[in-house]
C-alpha cells in the first residue's frame, strides 16, 4: 500500500479499504484542512465517510460533492480521490480554490454506496445498486438515485426489486440516502450540491421528475455552459448539458431534484467521460484525464457559488 498520498497510485482503480486508507492518510497529512466525518452506516454496516475541507469558522456556507452512488461507475470513485488530493494541493496555490476555502467548506463523499462498491470488487463488477435484501423478493438492492423524496415513485423508476432502477419501498428508506438527507438538513447551509456519475458526458440540473422548469433554470443553464467550456479546454471533451428530463429521460427520485427542492440552488449532476468503447470498464489510464477535466468544471460551479451568495 501507498505510504502517503503523494505516492498513492491515482492511475489505477482501488478497493474500498484502499480508498478508506487514502482518506485517513489525507486527514493525517493535512490536519488543519481536512477532517473525516462519519455520517452514518451503510445497509451492511460500513461507515459512510465524508471528508470535510475547512479552514475554520463555524457552519460556513458549504459545497457538497459526492461520487459513486452507483457502484459499478468506478471512474467516479477514482475521480473523487483525485479531487480530494487536488483540493489540498491547490489550497494556497490556486487563487480560486484558496478564496473559496477561506470562506466556505467543501464536503466530499467519495463512496456513497460502499456495499455496492465492495460487491463490484468481490462478486459482480456490473453491480449498480446497494445490497439491501428486499423483503418478499430474491432480488437484491435499491437504486440509490431513485430513492430520494422528489417525485418518488414516478416515471423513470421501478417498483420491481429485480429492476436496476428499483426505487425501494419508500423515499429515504436506504441508509446511504437517509444519511445524506440528515446531514444536509442538519447542516442547513449547503449552497451547492454536485453528484457525480459516469458515463455519458453530460452536465445536468433539475428537474428529472417533472417537465416543469426549475425556477433558476436560466442561471443553471448559463453556469453549466461555462463549466463544460472549461472542461473542454483541457482535452476537447464535448459535453451536453441541460435539465435531466430534457437531456436524458424522465427520472424520478433523484438526488439533485431533492436538494434543489430543499433550496440548494446550485444542484448539478455530472455524467463523466465516455470514450465510446468501454462504458463502465473505462481503462484506468483514463482516470486522471477524466478527473482533471472534470475538476475544471467543478471549479467553475464552486466559484460561481462562492461569488453569488444567496
Amino acid at each position: 500500500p501507498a505510504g502517503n498520498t503523494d505516492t498513492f497510485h491515482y492511475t489505477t482503480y482501488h478497493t474500498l479499504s484502499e480508498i478508506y486508507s487514502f482518506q485517513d492518510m489525507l486527514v493525517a497529512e493535512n490536519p488543519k484542512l481536512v477532517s473525516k466525518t462519519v455520517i452514518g452506516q451503510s445497509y451492511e454496516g460500513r461507515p459512510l465517510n465524508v471528508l470535510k475541507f475547512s479552514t475554520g469558522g463555524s457552519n460556513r456556507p458549504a459545497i457538497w460533492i459526492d461520487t459513486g452512488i452507483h457502484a459499478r461507475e468506478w471512474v467516479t470513485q477514482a475521480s473523487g480521490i483525485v479531487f480530494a488530493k487536488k483540493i489540498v494541493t491547490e489550497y494556497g496555490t490556486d487563487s480560486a480554490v484558496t478564496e473559496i476555502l477561506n470562506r466556505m467548506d467543501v464536503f466530499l463523499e467519495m463512496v456513497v454506496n460502499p456495499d455496492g462498491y465492495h460487491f463490484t470488487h468481490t462478486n459482480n463488477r456490473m453491480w449498480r445498486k446497494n445490497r439491501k435484501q428486499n423483503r418478499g423478493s430474491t432480488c437484491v438492492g435499491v437504486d440509490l438515485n431513485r430513492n430520494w423524496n422528489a417525485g418518488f415513485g414516478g416515471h423513470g423508476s421501478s417498483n420491481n426489486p429485480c429492476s436496476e432502477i428499483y426505487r425501494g419501498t419508500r423515499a429515504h428508506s436506504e441508509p446511504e440516502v437517509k444519511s445524506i438527507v440528515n446531514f444536509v438538513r442538519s447542516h442547513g447551509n449547503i449552497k451547492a450540491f454536485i453528484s457525480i456519475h459516469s458515463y455519458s458526458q453530460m452536465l445536468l440540473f433539475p428537474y428529472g421528475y417533472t417537465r416543469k422548469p426549475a425556477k433558476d433554470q436560466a442561471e443553471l443553464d448559463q453556469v453549466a455552459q461555462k463549466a463544460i467550456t472549461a472542461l473542454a479546454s483541457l482535452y476537447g471533451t464535448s459535453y451536453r448539458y441541460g435539465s435531466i428530463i430534457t437531456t436524458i429521460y424522465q427520472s424520478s427520485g433523484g438526488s439533485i431534484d431533492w436538494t434543489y427542492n430543499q433550496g440548494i440552488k446550485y444542484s448539478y449532476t455530472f455524467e463523466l467521460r465516455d470514450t465510446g468503447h468501454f462504458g463502465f470498464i473505462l481503462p484506468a489510464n483514463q482516470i486522471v484525464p477524466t478527473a482533471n477535466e472534470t475538476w475544471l468544471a467543478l471549479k467553475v460551479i464552486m466559484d460561481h457559488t462562492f461569488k453569488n451568495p444567496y
Partner: protein
Amino acid sequence: KGDFHGHQVFRIVPKDDVQLALVRVLEDILDLELDFWRWVTPVDVRVPSHSLQVVKTYLENHCIKYFTMIKDLQALLDEEQRQMKSIA
C-alpha cells in the same frame, strides 16, 4: 465471481423516437436479462450470450442500426484485474 464470458455490449443508434421506443421495449422482456448501461441515444446495452441472437434479430428486423461496442466483456474485466494486481 460474476462470469461475463460471452457477454457483449451493443451500441444501438435509433434514428428516431419510434426506434428508441422499440429498443426500450426490450428492457421489459426479463428473460433476455439485458442490462442497459445508457438509455439515451446511442443506447448501450449489455447482452448475455443466451440473448445475443434474439436481440440481433430484433434490431435487424426493425432496421435499427447497432454495432458491437464490446465483443468480449470478460476479457476487458480480466485485463482490468490484471492491471490492478500488477500495480498492487
